[in-house]
């Protein structure tokens, strides 16, 4: 769930017509002084974090003068909340508050409706409010087709003791907040406190908005880097992985690091799951064998081989893992040979140096395991494939044996050496990469294995060389599903004249950096 900072939240509220205090987010002390001079002292300075309860951390302070402001800012920029450094402060004009309220919207999964929660006693956390002043609070489930109307809210406001003079104004503010929630695809939106000022205005003194990951695509304006929740800033590798997912809608690819700086000799496993439920069980199997998990990764929902390939390359960008464990539900609906080909391409390119066990149970598992055996037999380490009748525990036992056989050696990350695409004289783009063929090499190749291995019939032989049988645009649009069969077939049965280039944005630079360290 993508959380927004308070200052971002407030700009959304403003867009939907809710009043917010005059102010601005700043990244340095100088800027803080300028903003304060502009809006006039006294000001309130608030650290910008994703966590709630900032006041209790001392992260909200008033400043009456430039000196006080400087001191506060200096202290704040040194603060750390959880795993996050404070990078921004919000400077706002201090409000003269008469009364505080709580307004929140959450999604009620049981009712399948947004729920409005309101209290005429804002300020503290909603749990405390509910405990101490239950009579001040109401909740209301909203009909999303009809929307939220004033006539629905006003009787409830009266019940919890809102001043009659405020009823219309409050109802209209609540409706605007609801529109902001729907309009920004928020899973939750909370403003605590919403305040009544001496001037008689209703102002959102705080804003805490969490955007639905699946709705983020509709809001490029939020600048959300990774539409997934993290309890720390995303690592560089996670950002690289997210780009792969973002630019390819086919299947799901999810990656996060449970440990970033892996020490050698600590028995870390690069984990590659398929499907949430099966992955969780498979990770239990890893833990049972006393290995640590370097990363969580999930490629599921029928991803193309190219996506599995990229996932494997990213997992293998973690130095010091001692083994590679791929294990999903065990009885997958998707054709398992796609994953197998993704692994083959990645492991060959990397000249895999730690053993791998791939539990590929599901449709066509025999073909998948056969692919592994056929093409990965010449690596210096063992890669074993298993099917649906082999449990995660059994497979993890096997990996444990192989790791010991390999002397618990840990993985060395290598720089990415890219092939020179100019060496290939016939090329066309696929959805996320390109297929490059050297017609000088493959002229009159007797096997024609690239064409024969292509189940989607996108290639044909013309004048003794393979060429496209369909329009280039259709290939790019996805008629070529990047199954990788042609490259593998050509490498082993043909003349090794075909190369599928599947760039992973940022990975080359990342590898350069970590191999230097």
């Amino acid at each position: 769930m993508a959380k927004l900072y308070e200052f971002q939240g407030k700009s959304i509220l403003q867009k939907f017509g809710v009043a917010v205090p005059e102010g601005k987010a700043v990244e340095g002390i100088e800027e803080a002084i300028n903003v304060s001079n502009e809006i006039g002292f006294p000001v309130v300075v608030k650290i910008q974090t994703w966590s709630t309860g900032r006041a209790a951390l001392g992260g909200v302070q008033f400043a009456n003068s430039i000196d006080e402001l400087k001191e506060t800012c200096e202290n704040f920029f040194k603060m750390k909340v959880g795993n996050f450094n404070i990078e921004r402060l919000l400077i706002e004009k201090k409000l003269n508050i008469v009364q505080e309220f709580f307004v929140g919207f959450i999604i009620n999964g049981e009712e399948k409706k947004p729920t409005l929660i309101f209290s005429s006693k804002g300020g503290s956390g909603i749990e405390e409010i509910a405990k101490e002043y239950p009579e001040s609070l109401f909740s209301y489930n909203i009909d999303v087709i009809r929307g939220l109307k004033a006539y629905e809210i006003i009787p409830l406001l009266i019940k919890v003791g809102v001043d009659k003079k405020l009823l219309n104004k409050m109802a209209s503010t609540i409706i605007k907040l609801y529109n902001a929630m729907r309009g920004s695809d928020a899973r939750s939106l909370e403003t605590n406190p919403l305040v009544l000022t001496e001037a008689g205005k209703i102002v959102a003194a705080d804003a805490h908005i969490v955007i639905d990951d699946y709705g983020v695509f509709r809001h490029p304006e939020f600048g959300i880097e990774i539409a997934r929740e993290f309890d720390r800033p995303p690592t560089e590798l996670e950002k690289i992985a997210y780009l792969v997912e973002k630019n390819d809608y086919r299947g799901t690819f999810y990656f996060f690091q449970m440990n970033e700086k892996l020490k050698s000799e600590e028995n870390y496993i690069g984990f590659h799951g398929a499907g949430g439920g099966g992955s969780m069980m498979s990770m239990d199997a890893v833990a049972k064998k006393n290995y640590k998990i370097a990363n969580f990764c999930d490629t599921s929902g029928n991803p193309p081989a190219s996506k599995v390939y990229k996932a494997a390359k990213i997992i293998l960008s973690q130095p010091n893992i001692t083994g590679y464990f791929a294990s999903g539900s065990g009885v997958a609906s998707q054709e398992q040979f796609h994953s197998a080909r993704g692994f083959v391409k990645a492991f060959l390119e990397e000249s895999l140096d730690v053993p791998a066990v791939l539990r590929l149970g599901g449709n066509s598992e025999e073909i998948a395991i056969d692919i592994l055996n056929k093409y990965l037999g010449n690596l210096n380490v063992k890669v074993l494939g298993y099917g649906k009748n082999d449990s995660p525990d059994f497979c993890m036992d096997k990996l444990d044996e192989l790791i010991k056989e390999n002397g618990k050696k840990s993985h060395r990350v290598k720089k990415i050496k890219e092939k020179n695409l100019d060496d290939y004289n016939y090329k066309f783009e696929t959805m996320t990469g390109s297929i490059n063929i050297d017609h000088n090499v493959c002229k009159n190749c007797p096997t024609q294995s690239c064409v024969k291995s292509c189940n989607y019939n996108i290639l044909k032989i013309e004048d003794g060389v393979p060429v496209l049988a369909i329009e280039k645009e259709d290939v790019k649009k996805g008629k070529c599903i990047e199954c990788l069969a042609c490259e593998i077939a050509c490498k082993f049965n043909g003349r090794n004249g075909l190369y599928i280039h599947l760039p992973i944005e940022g990975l080359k630079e990342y590898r350069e950096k970590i191999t230097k360290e």
Partner: protein
Amino acid sequence: MSILIDENSKVIIQGITGREGRNRSKLMKEYGTNVIGGVTPGKGGQEVNGVPVFDTVAEIVEKYNGIDASAIFVPAPLVKDAAIEAIVAGVKLLLIVPDRVPIHDVLEIAQYAKECGAKFIGPNTLGILSVDKAVLGMIGGKAKSAKEWFKKGNVGVTSRSGGITSAMSYYLGQNGIGLTTIVHVGGDSVIGLPHNEIVKLFQKDPETKLIVMFGEIGSSQEEKVAELIKNGEVTKPVVAYIGGKGAKSGTRFSHAGAIVEGNKGTYAGKVKALKEAGAYVVDSFLDIPKVVKEVNKEKSE
């Protein structure tokens, strides 16, 4: 009997001309599902896997005098419109396959469904399969596999994980335990028919004698099942496994639904509620067949 779908249900596929729709219509037809046709706006008049394609759901509903169920295979951003179209056209059961449907879209679908008396499964579901009768969605992947993997019998399966739906059903079959209907309720946090709704349907189905449930951390579906058992609405034995024991609060492993927020939806809470209600909760997933056999034996004595 079975629940939700059988060989007589008239089924359509929305998005039949796309990559997944094309593929899965083949699976459904070959398994025995009564696939009437498909819908892709602008592609009416074409044919896919031997069934006609229409521009709108309303047309196909009129032509065939009502449609029982629609499997939706359109890209996530288009799901809302497709689902609402089907609901308004009078289709009473929708299966929403895609992952990553915006949650506010799901809320809108839910409201329409409620007003029109329709049900939906998903989003983010592999589907449902009534053994030897019909499949809606993509369980099994290929008809040949689905026929091989799932055996007919009297156990109902409901799961929050797609892969595990097949895995659990397969392992039960390997242990000689047959099934009525298997349901993947969907991996999202807001879904049409959560465990508690499916379990109620199994309770009403005369053929189902025992229910197997794969639960997960997050949401309150499993706690609701515990309530149903406790208050006597569900009297058939329930064998349950809860995944996500090792996950710490706040982490999420792919499934949007599998997230623990505060004290809600924890592993311990779910296990406790189910055990107290009288469900059979297993610690290890692979123990499910063994416990099902034991419970069956116990009940027949």
